[in-house]
Structures are given as C-alpha cells and as structure tokens.
C-alpha cells in the first residue's frame, strides 16, 4: 500500500524536471530522498503532495489513484526547509489550524495539541507569534503542525538545513522518535549522506531528475547500483580511478598495482573502475603494504582533528578524509593508502560489479 509513483514524469516549459519515475515507498518509517541541490527532491515531493500535477503517470496512495486530487483533499502534511508558519497566528493556533479545518471540537483540539507541543518542547511558547521564536523553535512549530495533523503522509523537505549545527544534531536525533508515534509514511529529503544513514529506513538516491536507486538505506550505501548512486551517497563524492585487473593484480596506467582479494577474486580480467569513499583513503605514513598510490596535493584543509586532502591521482580528483592533523604543502607528492576492504568495483559503464566491506 502506502505511496507509489507509477511512471511519473514532470515537464515544465519544455524542460524535464522529473524523468519517468516509478517507485513504491515503504509504508512506515523513513523514506529518504538523497541527492544534491537541483536533483529534483523538492519537485518530487511537490508531486507527492499534489501541489503540482505530473505530466504523465499516476500517483497511488493506499490503493487509490490520487492523481489530480486537489491537495486540500489529500491527507498530507509538509515541512519546508524555510521556516513556514502562519505569521498572524500564535504557536497554539498554528499547530491547531489543520485540526480546526478538519472540524474537530475545541476540547479535542486542545487534547491533541498539548502532547505534540510537549514533545517538541513548545509549551512555554504557545501564546507567542512565530516571529518571536528562534529559528529552531520556528521549525519545531512547523513540525508540530505536521505532527498534530493526523496525516498518512508526511513530507519533510530538508527541514534541518537552515538550522545551526547544534540544533540540527539535536533535532535529527529526535526525528525518528517524533514520527514513530503513529504509523505513517514519512518522506525526508536531504543532501547529506550522513543524515540518511542516521535516519535509516529506505533511501532513494536522486540525480538530475531521476531516482537512480531505491532500497534499504544500508544496502544502498554498501551496494550502490552504479557510480552515480555511489557518488550521491558519499560526501565528499566517491573517488574513482580506472584500473585493469590481470590475474591477481589491479594496476593503474602508471604501473602502480596492488593485490586482488576478497570479493574481486572471481572476476574476469579486464578494465574496471575502482571506487573508494574518501574516509577509506589515508596518508600512507610509512606503510609499505596494501594498495598504495601516489598523488599530487591540490588542497589540504585541517578542521579540528580531521584533515581533508584533495589530491590529483593521474588526472582524477581524489579526496582523503583522515583523522589527525596531516599538513601537506600544495604540489607535494604524497603516498596514500587505500583501504581495499572497503571499496567498490564498477564496470567501465559505471555499473557496480562487486563491493567489499561496509
């Protein structure tokens, strides 16, 4: 049941915004739309909500075709990235407004707003106008409105993106608990892979108006179907380099080579694309075993206890994310160690051939 899109596409002014998409969301828990800005996450959500009608295809909800049903008649709630509240109403009225529209009685409304306000720690502010709240409180108010409404589908469009770091962490931890109260489909859009992993559930990786893959979040992270999905699900994007497998050996064009093992052993010889996430590439620091590559440092950033080193590996821009402070000069040639146990192998067309580790 739940929400499913059947061959949905959207064309605006001759431009394709969403390409032919078919997906059946998980009926309960989080469905995460993961993709960079302009990947079409918001557009897809607006389609799901019924704010825009698809050019082709159908949208089904709980076994009913809801394509073309006006948004007011679909039992949906939505929270935007911007903090959207009704500026002329106080917090209580904001939370209560969907209930009032649904024709609930006064006492019933009060009974339903109270626990939601408590859950989101808005009780002290019920009499205040949204403009008198901090950003975090405003967004909590918007979420409270979405929660109070007894909707079957909740759409959260990057709800934490405009919050400061600390509040984001805090709310992110609360989210699954908040929406677990009642069985409903939650769709959550985000640009951050770490957020997707934290919230779990199912993930749809999106790129340029297409869903590249949909499945349980962990599976997609470990076994992305192709290079595009892998790169969406990695921040910074996954490092890739063309390799040639010959017998027991992977080699790069410059002759650098390392031993083939694990899941890659049974593969046929030939050209592949080797991929590894930035946090599995570290400065070698004197190690002489395993997969070692040499690159020219482009930029080295040190943020607290982490170092991000951008380097050039035979014309490919690579990134290494390592603990500890590694200070390198620009242009320096540095050896890096690749953790082959956490790598992926793609065909030259970009499809996943095999993956190792988690």
């Amino acid at each position, binding site marked *: 049941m739940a929400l499913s899109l059947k061959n949905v596409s959207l064309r605006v002014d001759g431009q394709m915004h969403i390409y032919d998409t078919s997906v059946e969301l998980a009926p309960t828990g989080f469905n995460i739309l993961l993709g960079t800005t302009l990947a079409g996450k918001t557009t897809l959500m*607006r389609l799901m*909500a019924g*704010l825009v009608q698809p050019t082709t295809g159908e949208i089904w909800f709980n076994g009913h075709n809801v394509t073309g049903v*006006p*948004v*007011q008649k679909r039992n*949906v*709630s*939505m929270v*935007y990235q*911007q903090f*959207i509240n*009704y*500026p*002329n*109403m106080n917090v209580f009225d904001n939370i209560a*407004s*969907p209930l009032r*529209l*649904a024709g609930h009685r006064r006492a019933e409304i009060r009974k339903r707003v109270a626990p939601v306000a408590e859950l989101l720690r808005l009780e002290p502010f019920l009499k205040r106008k949204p403009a008198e709240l901090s950003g975090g409180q405003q967004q909590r108010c*918007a979420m409270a*409105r979405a929660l109070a*409404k007894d909707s079957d589908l909740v759409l959260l469009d990057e709800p934490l993106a405009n919050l400061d770091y600390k509040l984001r962490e805090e709310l992110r931890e609360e989210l699954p608990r908040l929406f677990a109260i009642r069985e409903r489909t939650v769709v959550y859009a985000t640009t951050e892979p770490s957020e997707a992993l934290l919230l779990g559930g199912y993930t749809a990786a999106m790129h340029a108006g297409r869903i590249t893959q949909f499945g349980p979040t962990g599976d997609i992270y470990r076994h992305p179907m192709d290079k595009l999905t892998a790169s969406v699900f990695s921040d910074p994007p996954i490092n890739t380099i063309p390799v040639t497998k010959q017998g027991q050996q992977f080699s790069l064009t410059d002759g650098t080579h390392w031993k083939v093992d694990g899941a890659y052993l049974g593969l046929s010889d030939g050209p592949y694309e080797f991929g590894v996430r930035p946090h599995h590439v570290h400065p070698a620091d004197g190690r002489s075993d395993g997969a070692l590559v040499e690159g020219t440092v482009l930029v080295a950033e040190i943020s607290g206890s982490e170092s991000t080193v951008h380097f050039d590996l035979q014309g490919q821009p690579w990134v290494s994310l390592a603990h500890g402070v590694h200070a390198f000069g620009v242009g320096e040639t540095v050896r890096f160690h690749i953790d082959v146990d956490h790598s992926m192998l793609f065909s030259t067309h970009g499809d996943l051939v095999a993956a190792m580790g988690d």
Partner: protein
Amino acid sequence: MSTRRTASFKWLVPFVYIVFLMLPIYWLLNMSFKTTNEILGTFSLFPQEFTLENYRAIFTDPTWYNGYINSLIYVCINTLISVTVALPAAYAFSRYRFLGDKHLFFWLLTNRMAPAAVFALPFFQLYSAMNLFDTHIAVALAHCLFNIPLAVWILEGFMSGVPKELDETAYIDGYPFWKFFTKIFLPTIAAGIGVAAFFCFMFSWVELLLAKTLTSVDAKPIAAVMTRTASSSGYELGLLAAAGTLTMVPGAIVIFFVRNYIAKGFALGRV
C-alpha cells in the same frame, strides 16, 4: 579641536531644514487665526488679534464644510475600490506567471506617467454621457486610473515578500483558497494594505484637476472650493488660511496611523 568644533554645529543642518520646511505651514496656521485686515495690513509673526472667526465660518457655512464632506466621501470610496481591486491583481502578479505578465505590470505603471490633464476631457465627456457628472462615484472612479496601478505596485511588493511556501503549506493543511487568502494571507500583508490605502488616500485627497473637472455643485471637493479666492465680501485670506489648515488635518491623521509601516513600504523599493 577640529572634531569638537564640527560636532557643535551638527544641529545646524537639520535645524535649518526643519525651519524652512515648517515655515510655510506655520505661516498658514498663523494666518488662519488672523483677520483678513491684519493679514493685508501688517506683517506679524503671530496673530495680534487672535480670532477663531475663520474656523467658525467654515464649520457653519455649508458651501465650505460640504467641500470637506464631498472630498472625504470620494476619497474613501476611491481607496476602498482601489485596494479591493488591487488585492487580487497584485496576488496574480506575485504568484502566477502568465502570458505578458511583465508587460502588463509595466503598462499599469505607465498609467501614472501621463498628466491627469490628458484624461480630463475624455473623462468629462464620458461621465457626462453616463449621467455621472457631479457625483462622488465619478471622481472616485476617475482617481482609480492612477491609484489602482499604484496599489497593485505596492501590494505586489509586499506579497512577493511572503514565501510561496506559505500558500502551499496552507493548501496542504486543508485551507481552501479564499479561506487562506482572507484568514492568513491578508493579515500577513496587513502592513502593505495599510501603506497602499494610505497612498491611495493621499493621492486622491490632493488631486485637484480631475476632481474639479468632474464636479460642479453636489460633489465639489474642498480643494476646488478653496480656489475661490474672492467672495461677495472681497478677499477672505483668513478664511482661506483656515480652510487650508483644515485640509491638512485628514492627511496628518492618516499618516499618524500608518507611520510605522511607511518606511517598510519605501524600503521594499516600491512607491
């Protein structure tokens, strides 16, 4: 040393500015409390023989006070029509893209570029033919010519400042369009409505040419009454000064109510 010297004269510029600004207003007020003889006979900074006779004359003579009533009636009708018509128009301009929307928006503005005198003759002909000559509604409608574009322009600025997501959130919550528009959207842009109404009121209040052309007796505005400088009893400068002072009062009252929003109206790059 030098900084102290410049600092001590800082008050001078605003002081001079305000003196020059206030002088004509003071002089009008000053004259309104004098007799015509004193105005013509002597030069005095304040009334030698203080009199309220001029004001009494205005409030007792129907040809005078009817002028105020007429003006207020058509100004209020005009403000009401302008804002009511401009609200949906401004909403359309701020929320929808349609064929030629930008051209239409610009064209609306160009209506303000033509002098009112251009329209005096066609309006006179048209309203006479429609038997609307010398009625309040005639002047109110004529002033819509430049007040509706103005109101659309101001309101569109305020409406575009409200994120479209607010509309969508309301629809998702289940608000039908009209309920959203009246219960949420209008209160949200209340300041803008106030500013738009203020400007409509002011422009209609000060406009003389069309108001004078389209009226004769029954709807004659105060500004037209005031242009009658001489009466059977010769020059009545004191009376005119009192009428002028009273003409400024409605504007001052309206400004008092919207003073906090005016700056916002200007800041949005509109008006």
